[in-house]
C-alpha cells in the first residue's frame, strides 16, 4: 500500500486555487490549435468541458452513446443547483457551502477540492444566466432559491423540477456554438470501447459506431472521461438505461485507480418497485421534502389493514401515525441528508411497517402543506379560512405550481392522485460518489487521462448533498479542467498529430474486436438482461443500504461466479455490423460484473460506517452510523491487477486543515 500524491497546491486553503491557476503552465493560443482533446460523455461535465476547451482553442472530439449530446442523463436532475451566492441574505458563504459539503460527505472528501468547488459555485450561476438558462425568478425579477436536505440556508437555484434539463441544454448550447464553428466534432451514437496508451500516456481511444458497428480509432493528446456514475450496477436505479461504467472501467484496466467504489447514494424519495417487470426507478425530487412529511402507521394492525386494502392512509388519525424523521431528528426533521433519510425508511420497513404490498414503501404526505398554504391563500384573498373545502382547493393550487410536473409524473406511473392520497416512496440507488481516482488537477493515475463529473470519485466524500451534483459537474467542466489540463498539454505543443497507426492502436482494436466476436459467437442460453438483473439483486441485497462482512464476502463470491457463467452462457443475438443494442449492453454488463466484485471488496475493507456506506458492525447503540476516523480517514484507490479480488489498495490520507472533524449529527 502506497500513499497517493494528490498534488494539492501549498498555501492557505482559500488561496490554493487562485495561486494554482496563476502558477500552472499555459498553452499559447497558437499552439492550442495544434492540440486535440477527446471528451467521452456529454452530460453537464462533458458538455461544459468540451465547449470550454473548444472555446479556448483546442480541437475537441466529443463522444456520446445517445443520439444527441442533449440526452445525457444530467438532463433528468430535478431539484436544483447549489451556489454560495447568499442572495437570500440568510448567512450563506463560500465557507459555509464548503463546510456543509464536507460535513454532508461525512468527512471523507478532499478539503482542497471541495473548497475550490464552493469558490467557483457562484461563477456557475452567472455563467448559466448569461447563456439564457431560465432559472426560477421572483416577482421582482431576481433569482429565486429553495432549500435542500442537510443544510440550514436556501442556496439552491432551480428551474421548476427540471433544473438538470435546463443546465444541460445550456451546456449543450455552448457546445452547439463550437460545433457550428467547427471546433468540436461530435460523434453521436458512438461508444468508447478502450483507451489507447502510447509511452504510458493517454493518446486516444477505440470507439464503436453503434449504428454501423464500425470500430474507429481516434487519436488525441489527452482523453477526458465524463461518462457519469455506475448506479446501474444495481440494475434498478434512477439512472438512465444506458448509463454505464465502461469508459471508467476501461481506463481503470489501463492503469487508472478506482476510488471508493462502495460509496453509493441511495436516494430516499423514489417511486417504489411495482413488480418484476420493472426496468428502472423514478426519482421524486428531494425538494418535495420541503413540504412533504414522511410517515408510517404506528400500529401493526393499521399496516395490515392498509396492505389488505381495508384501510386508506387518510383514515388514520394523527396520533396513529409515526413521523419517524421528525421523531428521530427534530432539528432537521424531514430535511435530513439523503443517507440518513434512506436508512430510516429501511429501518421502519424492516421492522414491518412498510405500507405497500411488498412492504417496501413509506408515505410522503402533503396534507399539512396543502392546509398551510390553503389557509395562507384564503387569508391573502380575504376568504373564509375555516372552509376546509376551499382551503384544500387553494392549497392544492399552490402545491401544483411548485411541484406540478412531479405530481403528474407520479400519477402517470402509480395511477393514484397524490393531491388526495399520500405518495408512496422508497429509497433507490441514485448516485455514486465513488469513481475514477483523480488528483487536484482532475488527472487520473494515467498521464493525460482525466475524469470529471460523477465519473470521478469527486468532491462528495461518502455522501452527496442534494443539488451538489450539478454544481460539481459544471464546476469541473467549465472552470477547473480547462485550466488544469493546460498544465499537462503545455508539454505537448511539439508532439504533432497523434498517429492512429501505432501498434498500440492495433493492439487495442484487436482486444475490442475479440471481445465482440466472443459475445456474438457464444450462443449461450441467457440474455444479457438475465445477468444484469441477477447482479443487481446481489448488489441490492448484500451491498445496498446496510452491509456486513458475511454478506459482502458472499457477494464477492457470487459475483465472480456470475461473471464466469456470463462468459459461458450469455446469448447476444445479431451481428457486429448493425444497430445492435444487445451487443452494446453485453459490453456494459461485462464491466459491471467486474466492478461489482471490487465494490464489495471495497465495502468489506472499509470497516466503518460513513455516509452512504453503513456497516452493521459499526453503529451506535441507537442504530446511527459510527465513523472510525482513527483508521479510515482515507480514500481507497484500487489498482487493477486482473481479477477484481486481486486489486491492490492505495490510500490517499485525508488531512483536514480548516475543518474540525466531528461526529455528524442532525438531531
Amino acid at each position, binding site marked *: 500500500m502506497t500513499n497517493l500524491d494528490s498534488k494539492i497546491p501549498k498555501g492557505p486553503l482559500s488561496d490554493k486555487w487562485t495561486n494554482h491557476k496563476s502558477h500552472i503552465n499555459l498553452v499559447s493560443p497558437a499552439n492550442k490549435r495544434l492540440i486535440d482533446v477527446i471528451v467521452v460523455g456529454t452530460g453537464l461535465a462533458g458538455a461544459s468541458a468540451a465547449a470550454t476547451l473548444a472555446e479556448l482553442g483546442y480541437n475537441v472530439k466529443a463522444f456520446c452513446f445517445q443520439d444527441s449530446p442533449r440526452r445525457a*442523463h444530467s438532463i433528468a436532475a430535478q431539484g436544483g443547483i447549489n451556489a454560495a451566492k447568499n442572495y437570500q441574505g440568510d448567512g450563506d458563504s463560500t465557507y459555509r457551502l464548503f463546510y456543509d459539503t464536507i460535513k454532508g460527505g461525512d468527512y471523507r472528501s478532499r478539503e482542497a477540492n471541495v473548497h475550490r468547488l464552493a469558490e467557483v459555485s457562484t461563477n456557475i450561476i452567472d455563467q448559466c444566466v448569461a447563456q439564457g438558462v431560465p*432559472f426560477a*425568478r421572483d416577482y421582482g*425579477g431576481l*433569482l429565486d432559491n429553495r432549500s435542500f436536505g442537510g443544510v440550514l440556508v436556501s442556496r439552491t437555484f432551480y428551474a421548476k423540477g427540471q433544473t438538470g434539463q435546463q443546465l444541460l441544454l445550456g451546456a449543450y448550447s*455552448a457546445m452547439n456554438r463550437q460545433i457550428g464553428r467547427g471546433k468540436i466534432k461530435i460523434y453521436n451514437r458512438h461508444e468508447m470501447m478502450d483507451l489507447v496508451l502510447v509511452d504510458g500516456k493517454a493518446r486516444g481511444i477505440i470507439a464503436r459506431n453503434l449504428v454501423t458497428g464500425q470500430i474507429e480509432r481516434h487519436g488525441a493528446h489527452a482523453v477526458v472521461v465524463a461518462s457519469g456514475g455506475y448506479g446501474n450496477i444495481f440494475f434498478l436505479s434512477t439512472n*438512465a438505461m444506458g448509463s454505464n461504467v465502461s469508459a471508467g472501467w476501461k481506463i481503470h484496466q489501463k492503469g487508472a485507480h478506482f476510488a471508493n467504489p462502495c460509496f453509493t447514494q441511495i436516494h430516499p424519495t423514489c417511486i417504489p418497485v411495482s413488480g418484476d*417487470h420493472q426496468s428502472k426507478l423514478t426519482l421524486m425530487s428531494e425538494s418535495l421534502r420541503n413540504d412533504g412529511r414522511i410517515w408510517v402507521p404506528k400500529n401493526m394492525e393499521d399496516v395490515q389493514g392498509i396492505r389488505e386494502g381495508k384501510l386508506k392512509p387518510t383514515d388514520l388519525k394523527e396520533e396513529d401515525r409515526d413521523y419517524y424523521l421528525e421523531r428521530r431528528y427534530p432539528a432537521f426533521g424531514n430535511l435530513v441528508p439523503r443517507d440518513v433519510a434512506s436508512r430510516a425508511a429501511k429501518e421502519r420497513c424492516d421492522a414491518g411497517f412498510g405500507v405497500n404490498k411488498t412492504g417496501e414503501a413509506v408515505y410522503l404526505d402533503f396534507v399539512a402543506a396543502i392546509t398551510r398554504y390553503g389557509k395562507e391563500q384564503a387569508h391573502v384573498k380575504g376568504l373564509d379560512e375555516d372552509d376546509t373545502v376551499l382551503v384544500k382547493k387553494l392549497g392544492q393550487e399552490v402545491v401544483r405550481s411548485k411541484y406540478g410536473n412531479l405530481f403528474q409524473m407520479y400519477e402517470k406511473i402509480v395511477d393514484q392522485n397524490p393531491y388526495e392520497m399520500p405518495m408512496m416512496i422508497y429509497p433507490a440507488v441514485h448516485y455514486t460518489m465513488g469513481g475514477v481516482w483523480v488528483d487536484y488537477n482532475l488527472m487520473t493515475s494515467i498521464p493525460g487521462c482525466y475524469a470529471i463529473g460523477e465519473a470521478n470519485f469527486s468532491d462528495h466524500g461518502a455522501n452527496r448533498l442534494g443539488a451538489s451534483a450539478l454544481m460539481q459537474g459544471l464546476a469541473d467542466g467549465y472552470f477547473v479542467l480547462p485550466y488544469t489540463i493546460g498544465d499537462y498539454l503545455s508539454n505537448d505543443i511539439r508532439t504533432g498529430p497523434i498517429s492512429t497507426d501505432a501498434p498500440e492502436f492495433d493492439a487495442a482494436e484487436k482486444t475490442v474486436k475479440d471481445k465482440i466476436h466472443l459475445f456474438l459467437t457464444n450462443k449461450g442460453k441467457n440474455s444479457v438482461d438475465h445477468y444484469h438483473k441477477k447482479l443487481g439483486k446481489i448488489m441490492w441485497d448484500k451491498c445496498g443500504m446496510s452491509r456486513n462482512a458475511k454478506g459482502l464476502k458472499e457477494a464477492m463470491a457470487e459475483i465472480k461466479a456470475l461473471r464466469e457463467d456470463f462468459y459461458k452462457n450469455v446469448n447476444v443475438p445479431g451481428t457486429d455490423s448493425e444497430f445492435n443494442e444487445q451487443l452494446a449492453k453485453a459490453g456494459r454488463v461485462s464491466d459491471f460484473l467486474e466492478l461489482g466484485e471490487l465494490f464489495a471488496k471495497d465495502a468489506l475493507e472499509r470497516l466503518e460506517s460513513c455516509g452512504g456506506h453503513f456497516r452493521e458492525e459499526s453503529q451506535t447503540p441507537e442504530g446511527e452510523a459510527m465513523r472510525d476516523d482513527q483508521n479510515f480517514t482515507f480514500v481507497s484507490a484500487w489498482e487493477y491487477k486482473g481479477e477484481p479480488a486481486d486489486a491492490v489498495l492505495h490510500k490517499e490520507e485525508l488531512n483536514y486543515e480548516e475543518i474540525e472533524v466531528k461526529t455528524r449529527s442532525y438531531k
Partner: protein
Amino acid sequence: MNLNLKIWRQANTTAQGKMETYPIENVSPDMSFLEMMDVLNEQLINKGIDPVAFDHDCREGICGMCSMYINGEAHGPDRLVTTCQLHMRKFKDGETITIEPFRANAFPVVKDLAVDRSAFDRIQHAGGFVSVNTSGNTQDANAIPINKHDADNAFDAATCIGCGACVASCKNASAMLFVSAKVSQYALLPQGKVEAADRVLNMVKQMDEEGFGNCTNTGACEVECPKGISLENIARMNREYLAASAKG
C-alpha cells in the same frame, strides 16, 4: 393482458421495411410501454428472432430519446407523456397495437423503430445558443432582473425535450414547434435578444435545408407534444422572423 403487436421492422436506413405481427401474453397493466417492449424483446431473443430496436434512455420522460408512433399517435394515446411514461393500463386486453417509427424524410429510420433526429442538432448548431464565452467572467446573475412572466414563458419554451413528436404528428412533417421553442426561449430573455435576428434567420434556414415540411397551423404538434409546448411559440417565431427579415 394479452396483446397483438403490429410493429414496423426495417433492418437499416436503406432497407425496405414492413409491418410484422407479434402476439404477447401476460402483460401487466402497471408496466410502462417500454417495459412491455422489453418483455417482447426477451421473448424474441429466446425464440431466435432479432429483437426490435427502439430508442430509449432515461425512462422518466425527460431525455427525449424514446419515440414510437403508437396506434396512430406520437407517444401513443395518452397526453403530455412520452412513450416511456405511457402505461399499459391505457390499453385494453386483446387489443391490437400498431407501432411505427416517427416518420419524416428528415428523420431517416436507423433500424426498426429508431430514427435519426440529428437534423434537430444541426438546427441548433446554426443558432441555438447565446454567444457568450464560458470563461465565467460574466456579470453577476442578478445584474439584469427579468420579468417573472417572461422568465416563466422562456422556461416553458425551454422545456422542449427534442423528441420530434411535433414533426411525427404534423401532416407536413414540419419542425416549426421545435425550432420556435428554442427561438422563443432566447427571444424572451435579455441575454438572447442581442443576436435574436441572426438566430431566427439561421435556424429557419437550416430547418428548411433539412427537408421538413411547411407549417399549416393544424395544431397537431401542440396536442401531441409531451411537454405541452404552446403554438404561441410558433407565432412568436413568425414575428421574430418577419422583423429580422425586414431588418435586412
